């Protein structure tokens, strides 16, 4: 029994999680990245497009990236909505499940939007989290890394039921493994230590309660000291850049979506 458990345990660790579901993806790739601002080289583009196809298929959602660097660029949120209306992306059907990252290099604005299935799993708050993760990389010009994180995080968060914090460390397999090993180690150590018998007398065993006790006591208040500390407010996502409304909205074509916008 023990060996079987151990074997199962090792097997689970040995199989990388992405391998199971990821095989069927590479059959037909569709273009999900529209890099008009030319931020990526060909190799980076191929890699990311493959990643977006693979992860998108697992969540039945098109994970798209648009970059624009032109004087014609207008409000980043409006551009995202118009793109969805005009291009009609969607994994399942035109105007279907999609996540869009719109990067406006002219105004250095970024907007993330989720439609249909993506909207149910990725609310404004989760998009804010994704944006917080990629903004530093966008600022420093590491676009490939930022896009990769965006695809991976959107994929990951869509695996979590709404209302659950996806970044809770207890959902991390390694943390769970650590807790399990610590628990096993602790209990086994206790078992070994107690195998030779343990002390079963305590401080009260030999105490004569009838004559023992506190004879006299005094608690004298001396003084009070107070220190204060400024509460650090987490910089609100929409604070610096609320151009056209921070969160989601509805496109001209009538498609409701969630979203998050910000500058970088």
């Amino acid at each position, binding site marked *: 029994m023990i060996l079987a458990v151990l074997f199962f345990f090792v097997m689970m660790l040995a199989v990388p999680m992405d391998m199971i579901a990821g095989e069927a993806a590479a059959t037909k790739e569709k273009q999900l990245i529209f890099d008009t601002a030319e931020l990526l080289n060909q190799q980076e583009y191929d890699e990311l497009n493959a990643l977006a196809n693979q992860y998108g298929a697992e969540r039945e959602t098109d994970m798209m990236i648009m970059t624009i660097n032109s004087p014609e660029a207008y409000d980043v949120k409006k551009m995202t909505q118009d793109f969805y209306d005009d291009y009609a992306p969607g994994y399942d059907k035109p105007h279907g499940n999609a996540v869009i990252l719109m990067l406006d290099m002219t105004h250095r604005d970024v907007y993330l939007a989720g439609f249909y299935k993506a909207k149910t799993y990725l609310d404004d708050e989760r998009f804010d989290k994704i944006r917080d993760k990629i903004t530093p990389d966008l600022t420093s010009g590491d676009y490939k890394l930022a896009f990769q994180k965006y695809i991976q995080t959107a994929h990951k968060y869509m695996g979590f039921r709404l209302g659950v914090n996806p970044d809770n460390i207890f959902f991390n397999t390694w943390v769970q493994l650590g807790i399990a090993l610590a628990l096993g180690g602790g209990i086994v150590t206790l078992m070994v230590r107690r195998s030779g018998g343990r*002390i079963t007398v305590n*401080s009260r065993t030999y105490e004569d309660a009838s004559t023992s006790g506190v004879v006299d006591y005094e608690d004298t208040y001396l003084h009070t000291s107070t*220190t204060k500390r400024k509460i650090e407010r987490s910089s609100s996502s929409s604070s610096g850049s609320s151009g056209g409304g921070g969160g989601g909205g509805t496109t001209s074509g009538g498609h409701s979506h969630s979203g998050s916008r910000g500058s970088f």
Partner: protein
Amino acid sequence: MPIIEYKCPNCGSGMVFDADTGMLSCYSCGRKDNIEQIPDPLTKHVFSEEDEAREYHCNSCGAVIMTEAETSATSCSFCGSAVVLSDRLTGELAPVKIIPFSISKEQAMKAFRKWCGKGLVTPSGFMTADRIKGITGLYVPFWLYDLHNDVEVYARATKVSTYRSGDYEYTKTDYYDLYREICLDYVKVPIDASEKMNDELMDKLEPFPYDKLESFKTPYLAGYIAEKYSYNDEELYPRVKDKIDKYIYSYINSTVSGYATVNYTDVDIDTELERADYVLLPVWMVQYDYNKRKYTFAMNGQTGKVVGKPPISKMKVAGWFAGISGISFLTLHLVSSWIIGGGFW
């Protein structure tokens, strides 16, 4: 004659103390005598101090009785008669009280086997307990200390509270001066007085049921091995002080609850020794051979509690570790997967 033997008035065989009935019994004819009614030769005779290298001769067969210097009761190695070396139990060496055995040899063997069978991390070969090499009923000398303690404690303590106001978090610390005067009486704190006995092992045997304490009578020793103390009460006083110091500090800590921090500035413990009684307490010593190594276990002769370091099976430890870790990992993972609401991974 410093040798005491109990001869059966009916048949002349040697009589021994029977743990089941608490009587002095003759195994040959079955006669049982109440210990209370047997005149104790120790109370009648006064022995003169003689040199250390004296010889004891068995009253039954006349052979020289081989003993160690600490032994006060044993059996003749030639004829097996139970003998008590009375001069090692008189004067300074006279025990005040005794807790007689209530677990007989057979019961002790059974209890020990049962204990072995319950070992979770001991090797299977050990669990069958079929290699008991020897089991000895031993009266171990203990000192029971009654100690009166007057304790005075001075401490500086704080209470901490935090609250928010506007953009600031305030931490308020109240400082207090504490004073405690405590009176603590500890009664019958046992310390083993035998040099041979492992102190740690003996400490784990506690507690002994003090309601079974009887006035010392020599017939209780018949058929068992008894020792005289190797250290007197004064020599062991530091050990008992050490032992109760832990109790005292735990009591002090319990009187200053409700504070965030307590720093003792001065703790004054004045311990007064009220009395120290020399008693004999019953212990079954079990010698066990496993894998060419000797293991010694001790069993409380009244409660049946077994202590001693058993061999540890690395396989079993690894098995438990893998099992517990594996099951808790699976449980954690399933629960979190359920909370997440997605697939298994």
